[in-house]
């Protein structure tokens, strides 16, 4: 099978994955908005979520063997 097609398909799947992750975070923030959160609270939540995501990714990478 044409390897170029596989590469394009894999890249497309990764772009989909990023889009889905972004939507998942956005949904959480939108739910906060609907629950009446203020702009200041949303700013703080986004900042905390970003730091938690980075820490989580680092922990998962650290678990992998070298």
């Amino acid at each position, binding site marked *: 099978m044409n390897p170029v097609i596989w590469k394009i398909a894999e890249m497309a799947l990764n772009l989909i994955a990023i889009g*889905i992750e972004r939507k998942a975070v956005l949904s959480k*923030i939108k739910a906060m908005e609907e629950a009446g959160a203020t702009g*200041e609270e949303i700013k703080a939540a986004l*900042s905390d979520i970003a730091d938690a995501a*980075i820490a989580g990714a680092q922990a998962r*990478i650290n678990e992998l063997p*070298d």
Partner: protein
Amino acid sequence: MLNEIVTANPQAWATLALIAGALTSWLSQARRGLAPWSPITYWLIDDKPLGWGTLGVLGAAIASIWQVNMDGANGVTLLQAWFASGLVVDALIQPGPAKTASDALNKLHNKASGFIRWPLLPVLVALALLSGGMMGCAGLQELAGDTLKVDANLSPPAQIAQSVINEANLTLTASANVIGNNAQSGIMAKVDAQAALDEVKRLREQVKTAQALLELGDISSAQSQAALINRLATALHKRVAAEARKQP
């Protein structure tokens, strides 16, 4: 009612368009006495040119990817409808049943070449431009509607800057999650995942700087820095996708 369904659930609409496109393509293949999956196998295995049907399915798939990344821009469904119409054309211009795949392709190519020359080609180009323009407008509208709530006490320029900073945090969160997923599932090598995550961390520090600048009242610098981070984060997304595809 249809508009309400599309607006409420653009992903379902995209999926329906894709399925409709695939079915139309398969039906057109069946008319030629070929297996339903033959448009794909022509291209992947036999290195034959693509037919309209395959292009339609691929186009609808690409539009779906775009739609996911644009958070459901309804205008993209126009593009999908456009590709679906390409599939209908595919079904209409098919020659009769062919004995071999190459025979069918040759007939299709000859007939399609003559058929699309005039007047269909300019109409197709015009429709493509029209759907592209409408799609762009719908996408911009969707992005504007997606702005996260910011502190109403801020000045209008500061609200814009805060929106850009919020967007940067959102994008970096998605990047970090995908890098973690890819590393854990073995799609990315550990060293590549670490390098990508280091980049996310660097951008996150820049976001913090932009936030500090905004709180100090330097709105212009904060906004320009956050906008730069957003562009860099988008580039990082592409890099993460490209790194992942390097893996065996």
